[in-house]
């Protein structure tokens, strides 16, 4: 048998390879040139017919040709596959400027957000949330809290009176009175939050129903300095350590001394602007040391125990937090407002 023409085989392969432009054509070419009946495989089978002295060189040439074919096939295969992949991917161009389609979450009301933030801070100080009724006995709303008969808060235009001489609580301090009436063990650290009612004409800044959050801490040895320390901790935890705060005398019937806490105005930074009526400060909470009469009302000796109470106007805080000027809009179930607050203006 004559020696196989390896060069011719390679030449034929190269010619066919150059026109194989698809994975299928390439596989057909591979089968033809590397399969059992490929020219090179047949050449190897025919080696026995080649003169013995030439056989090594011929075998070497055939093997070399096989390797070249396989390398060429691999290279071409990768190129063709890459080209095919690129073409496929190009065909799958997607317009990702289109809006996302994931289900849209709703949102908690700003009041809940603010209330949760407050409670998170208070829990760190060991406060527990306690609930109380909204339809209340006058005793818990007034008398027990040293709001005597002649106090203006008892006037009919301020308080909603309902059946049976009961009323809608005008402040969440009623919960404190109820807790004290149960004589729990000291220390007492409770928070109460929820709806309160005032019989007022509703306008942009006055509501007949709004939300408060109050705290009560009673123990032996609680001082005015503790009051200030706790209030400062709460305010700075909520608003940031860099905000300035100040304390000022106030009057609440159930605390003595009573304190108002002002926060430097977020709008002007304390320089004075229309938002803070030029004061540079906004009042954010009222507080004080529990009044001796309140202690005595519930059988505590004010010479032995002392305590603090504080109240946060969560409605006003929520309005400030959300940047809402018209507080009433927080209670109008207006989903346009809720969308704007949670996702920004549309």
């Amino acid at each position, binding site marked *: 048998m004559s020696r196989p023409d390896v060069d011719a085989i390679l030449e034929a392969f190269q010619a066919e390879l150059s026109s194989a432009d698809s994975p299928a054509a390439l596989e057909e070419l591979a089968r033809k040139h590397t399969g059992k009946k490929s020219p090179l495989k047949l050449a190897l089978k025919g080696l026995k017919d080649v003169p013995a002295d030439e056989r090594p060189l011929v075998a070497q040439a055939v093997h070399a040709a096989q390797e070249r074919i396989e390398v060429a096939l691999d290279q071409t295969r990768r190129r063709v596959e890459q080209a095919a992949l690129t073409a496929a991917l190009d065909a799958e161009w997607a317009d990702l400027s289109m809006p996302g389609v994931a289900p849209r*979450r709703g949102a908690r*009301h700003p009041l809940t957000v603010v209330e949760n933030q407050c409670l998170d801070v208070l829990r760190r100080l060991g406060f527990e949330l306690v609930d109380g009724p909204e*339809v209340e006995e006058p005793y818990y709303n007034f008398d027990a809290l040293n709001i005597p008969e002649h106090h203006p808060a008892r006037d009919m235009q301020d308080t909603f009176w309902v059946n049976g001489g009961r009323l809608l609580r005008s402040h969440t301090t009623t919960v404190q009175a109820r807790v004290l009436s149960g004589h729990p063990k000291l220390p007492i650290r409770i928070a109460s939050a929820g709806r309160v009612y005032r019989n007022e004409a509703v306008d942009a800044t006055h509501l007949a129903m709004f939300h408060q959050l109050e705290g009560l801490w009673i123990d032996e040895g609680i001082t005015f300095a503790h009051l200030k320390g706790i209030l400062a901790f709460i305010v700075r935890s909520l608003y940031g350590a860099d905000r300035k705060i*100040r304390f000022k005398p106030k*009057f609440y019937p159930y605390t003595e001394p009573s304190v108002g806490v002002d926060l430097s105005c977020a709008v002007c930074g304390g320089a004075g602007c229309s938002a803070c009526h030029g004061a540079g400060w906004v009042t954010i909470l009222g507080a004080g040391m529990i009044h001796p009469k309140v202690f005595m009302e519930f059988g505590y000796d004010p010479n032995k125990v002392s305590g603090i109470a504080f109240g946060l106007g969560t409605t006003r805080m929520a309005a400030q937090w959300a940047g809402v000027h018209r507080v009433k809009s927080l209670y109008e179930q207006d989903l346009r407002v809720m969308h704007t607050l949670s996702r920004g203006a549309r």
Partner: protein
Amino acid sequence: MKISPSVLSQYIDIPEDHRELRELLDDVGIEVKRIEESEAGIAFNLELLANRGDHACYEGVAREISGRTGASVRLPSVPHIPLCAPADFPVEVLVESALCLHYSATLMERVSDGVPFPKEVLAPLLATGVHAISAPVDATNLSNLEFGQPTHAFDADTLVGAVRVRLSSAGEQAWPLFQEGKITLPEGTLVIADDEKILAIAGVIGCEESKTTASTTRLLVESATFDPISVRKTSRALNLHTDSSARFERGANPALATVGAARVVGLLEQYAGWRRVSDTLLVGEWADPGRLIPLEIPVAASFLEYPLTAEEVATRLTRYGFRVSPPGPRWDADDGWIASPEVLDRSRDRNRTTVLVRVPPGRLWDVEFPDDLYEELAKSIGYNNTPSDLPQVDMGKLPSREEQVRDRVEDVLLGMGFYEVFTNGFYGRETRERLGFDERHPLWEHVEVQNAIDRGYSLLKNNALGQAVEALAANTRWRQEEVRMYEWTRTFHLDEGAPNGVCRERKLLWALASGPAHSPSWRDKGGSADPWLMRGLVEEIAAELRLPLAVVPGRRPHPLSSALHPNRQAAVVLGDKVVGLLGEVHPTVVAANRIKRARPVYLELDLPPLLTEGRALPFADPPELHPINRSLAFTLPQGVYAGDVAALLKGAGPSWLTEVAITDLFEHQEDGQPRRAVTFALTYANDEVRTSDEVNSASDYLVKVVEQRFGEAGVRQRA
């Protein structure tokens, strides 16, 4: 109240810079609401503390500043007027009610044509926007503004007989100044009257028939102190609110009665051509009780965590008008300090660290306990100058079970695109009407607000559905077609057996959806919010809380059932207890709220059952062999629940039938009747090697069971 800084500077040294002055006033508890500028100059608009009527004058503001800064207070000069006996006073004056603590009267006559007060004298009035009226009226207004003592000038020639301070009788009438005519007073109103008419409503306002005029030649100058409660009640009952009533309501200073009269007399004599023609008659039973409060210096120091000495305490409290004794124990008549046994007992330890503090008459209304004095000391030191300290805290607390449950349920709601809203605790009667309730309905009766100033506050809500649909109506008006909202709220239910004897309060969650079931997008329109959305919400809440909440179709006893579509509602059940309901809002309720083209769905769940501890879910490893799936389809007529068929399949199947799921619905007409083809996917466990024949045999058996049970109702297998 408005004050002028320039006038205030005549009473006490104050910062010239208005911002510094504002800070100072805020610091002492006299809050500046705003600074106003007008032709009259700069005025500070103040918000005064409700218990400090004494702040409502220049002397009071100056006194408070003095307490803080130590600067001396400079007061206008007041002539000394001797007191006279009743028999020596030309007019008989009788105080017949203890509600008048002190009543002073002084007679004057005009000796020359009146001249207006000089501008500098009127400055306190003009600076606050009060116009000059006449010398007698201006003098009384000035006295009030300067010293905080309301006074009144009667035309003495209008008086007939004795002047009595007494309670009005039933039906008695008075003609208050600036009113169009006479008004009937509530019986028992404290008045000043002569033998014929009422001269003034005590502490509130004078009357037309005794007022001074340009032709008045004789004055009776009244300066008195009235009971705060009496004045407040009268002022509220008559809806007459004056500077005088505001002062007396907060507790006036009984010791100022004669001072106020003397200031009026002095002004009129010095500037306006009037002459005093009597000494001052002072009647009334009030006497200074000389209240003494023992103050233990170490306790006060500990309370404020501020080092205090007896000397410093005395210095600071004296600035506010208190008198402070030397430290005990030598409290006796020789020292001028006679303490009652009660006070001595309260002082406990009569040693060198306790002082007695005598409360001035003007502060008897608000200073009663050592704590009241601690407040004075804190103000004097400055609230921002006392130390601040955080007490020891052992450990923080976790949220309560209720807080945790609410949070977890909210996560479900938020994930499904619901927004939280807040509604009022009350509504008007029209809300009840729109729900279609009549007097026989269990939710007809409400806890009622007795004194609502707005019709919208008439009824405490006993359901949340009314306001939920109203909220939808509002959003519809605002062109919001995609509505999903929820609220944690409470309703009020009349119950005489409740702890408050009036009503129970029920905490609940409601959710309402209308429009798309989820946010529409360019890919899909979001489906439609329908009862199955609410059912899915319940299922997700049940899964989150691991509670076996079940949705049972059909009407169950629930007060809101009548307000939902009769054939599109279901009860939510926990165990054998109905804990809520869901369904489509009844079309008549929707229409009553003027909502068009919307079919809202509503869910309500009681909160307490949700607080039940959830069950632990048993864990099982996934099967090594893939389960075997089969499908069965049945045609169901209206009235047959697919859920019942599914339950029957599961119950009748072999133990290795692990799940029956409803996977498809095809609605069509058959013989003119609506029919539903429902596909049930059966999942058989393949833990043992099962043949296809076994599985097919089990499925064939289930078909027979279903047709046997529901065949008469028209259920049959769909080929």
